[in-house]
């Protein structure tokens, strides 16, 4: 089952771990990067075991190897990697190379720990690290070369642990201009958890379920005050109201959205107060009146304005009390830290990637927020990746497939001879 090159490409995200072989189009495994234990059981479930159909994730205790985006707990990480390498990829580390996507500004102590894990505990033959923005740029530039003639782009990676806006020039990340927001999918999930627990049902222990609810139900609002006003309407007229059913452990092992049509109702709302879609909204409404209104059971919670107030925090972290600029300003600051000649080009090639950009209407909202902040003689162009979760992995797959890849790696013997610090110099950061 080994891919063409025998190079394992690992995008070790805080939420999802993407692993596969260099040269492939898609990773072999996309699994949660954590270990979890059901209440009352002693056995920890690792990575893909959590995705099984019959696993009930209610009340699971979680251990994640990654804290705030950086690999902290190498023991948990080793368990997850071993599971992925042996059971899912079925490779023998001693005859393969590893390309690892590493977070930017990884402190030397953590680089050292990573090297130790890769060479001493798993015994890889050779090892190379790369950062996510350059890989995302590499992938996009090789797929749409016409868009990136200037060989540079601004990669906005809105992931699980944090959000980075990083300018990339000729496949190198300009790390002096990188700007980071400490807000990602994890914080959003926890925020939703807090809101739901405060307002309807205590779900403080249900990270995995709320994560699922967030992915299925949250969206980005284009007009927050207007949508808030609509969200005040009573249940029947409220276009945002929908409920999520928690698993009961008997009939349902997974949580799910009660009524998908109901959940998508907001899409048919006219944007900017135009009354174009009024008729269809009317007919929609009458359809919903026909349905019998089920009573609120113990195992479901209703979301209304939470659905757009949660992703809203990416654009206004200050609303949470976090003293940081929002996403649009983060992008502008990153670009302004670059050379003035680069700035117009960077504004024209903003690539958004990462799992948290999957909220519907994310790109539209970002464009709306960004435009007023950019000088009016500059174009603003936002390119959304077709599969934002896999963006960095696919870039890594391309890099690993290059003929000169082996020369970029450090080998086990080099590591043993020179130690971690010396070897790391090769990676320019």
């Amino acid at each position: 089952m080994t891919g063409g090159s025998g190079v394992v490409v690992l995008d070790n995200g805080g939420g999802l771990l993407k692993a596969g072989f260099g040269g492939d189009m898609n990773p072999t495994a996309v699994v949660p990067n954590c270990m979890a234990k059901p209440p009352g059981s002693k056995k920890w479930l690792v990575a893909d075991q959590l995705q099984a159909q019959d696993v009930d994730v209610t009340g699971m205790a979680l251990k994640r190897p990654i804290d705030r985006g950086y690999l902290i707990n190498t023991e948990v990480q080793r368990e997850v990697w071993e599971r992925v390498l042996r059971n899912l990829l079925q490779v023998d580390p001693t005859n393969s190379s590893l390309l690892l996507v590493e977070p930017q500004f990884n402190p030397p102590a953590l680089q050292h720990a990573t090297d130790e894990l890769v060479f001493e505990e798993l015994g890889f033959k050779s090892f190379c690290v790369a950062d996510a923005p350059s890989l995302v740029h590499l992938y996009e530039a090789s797929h749409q070369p016409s868009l990136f003639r200037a060989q540079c782009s601004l990669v906005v990676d809105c992931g699980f642990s944090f959000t980075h806006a990083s300018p990339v020039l000729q496949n190198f990340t300009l790390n002096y201009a990188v700007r980071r927001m400490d807000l990602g999918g994890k914080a959003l999930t926890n925020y939703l958890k807090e809101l739901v627990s405060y307002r309807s049902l205590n779900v403080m222990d249900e990270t995995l379920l709320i994560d699922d609810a967030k992915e299925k139900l949250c969206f980005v609002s284009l007009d927050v005050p207007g949508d808030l006003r609509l969200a005040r309407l009573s249940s029947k007229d409220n276009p945002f109201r929908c409920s999520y059913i928690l698993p009961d452990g008997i009939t349902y092992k997974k949580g799910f959205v009660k009524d998908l049509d109901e959940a998508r109702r907001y899409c048919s709302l006219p944007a900017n107060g135009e009354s174009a879609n009024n008729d269809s909204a009317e007919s929609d409404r009458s359809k919903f009146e026909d349905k019998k209104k089920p009573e609120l059971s113990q195992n479901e919670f209703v979301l209304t304005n939470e659905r757009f107030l949660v992703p809203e925090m990416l654009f206004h972290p200050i609303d949470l009390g976090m003293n940081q600029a929002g996403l649009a300003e983060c992008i502008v600051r990153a670009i302004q830290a670059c050379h003035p000649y680069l700035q117009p080009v960077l504004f024209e090639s903003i690539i958004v990637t990462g799992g948290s950009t999957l909220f519907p209407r994310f790109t539209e909202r970002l464009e709306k927020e960004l435009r007023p902040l950019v000088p009016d003689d500059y174009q603003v162009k936002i390119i959304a990746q077709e599969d934002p979760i896999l963006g960095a992995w696919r870039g890594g797959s391309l890099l690993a497939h290059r003929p000169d890849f082996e020369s970029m790696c450090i080998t086990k013997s080099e590591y043993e001879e020179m130690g971690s610090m010396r070897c790391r110099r090769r990676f320019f950061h």
Partner: protein
Amino acid sequence: MEGEEEENVGPFRRTSARTRRMATRMASALASSDNRAQAALARLEALENDNAGPEVVDPNDDDEYGSDDEEDHVLMQKKQSKNMKRKTRQGKALEKKAARSFMDVLHEANLESLPPHVPTYSRAAVGPPSTSSRRYYCSVCGNAANYTCVRCGTRFCSCRCQVIHNDTRCLKFVA
């Protein structure tokens, strides 16, 4: 003043100690705005938490049970020595298990000592916003909130929400 209160409480300790203690803590929490800031910080910090489950709490609970319930001196000693042994082993296990948090690593890395032109984790942070001020949302229903609870500083949007807030949620963070 606090001493006086304690004395007054003395004879009724059995019945009212708990509520009294809560009350004084609340009062002190309310007196300083710092506490509110701390609660806000703690809340932000919690956004990065995982539910690690009962694992972390277990060893401490165990210790408490071990040392509290003993009357007999000899047994106590025995138990203590046993406890000590267990503690050290547990301590070791914990040291190994409790991975450092990223903040510890960051602190150790001593990034401030680097010259100012070197890009580091802390210098990559976006910094405070320039354009927008904070918007507040009602803690009960999520609407834009115009009013602040005078006791705990939580926001609410209407009279209805205020009643709900006062009945069930007020002082949740500071108490």
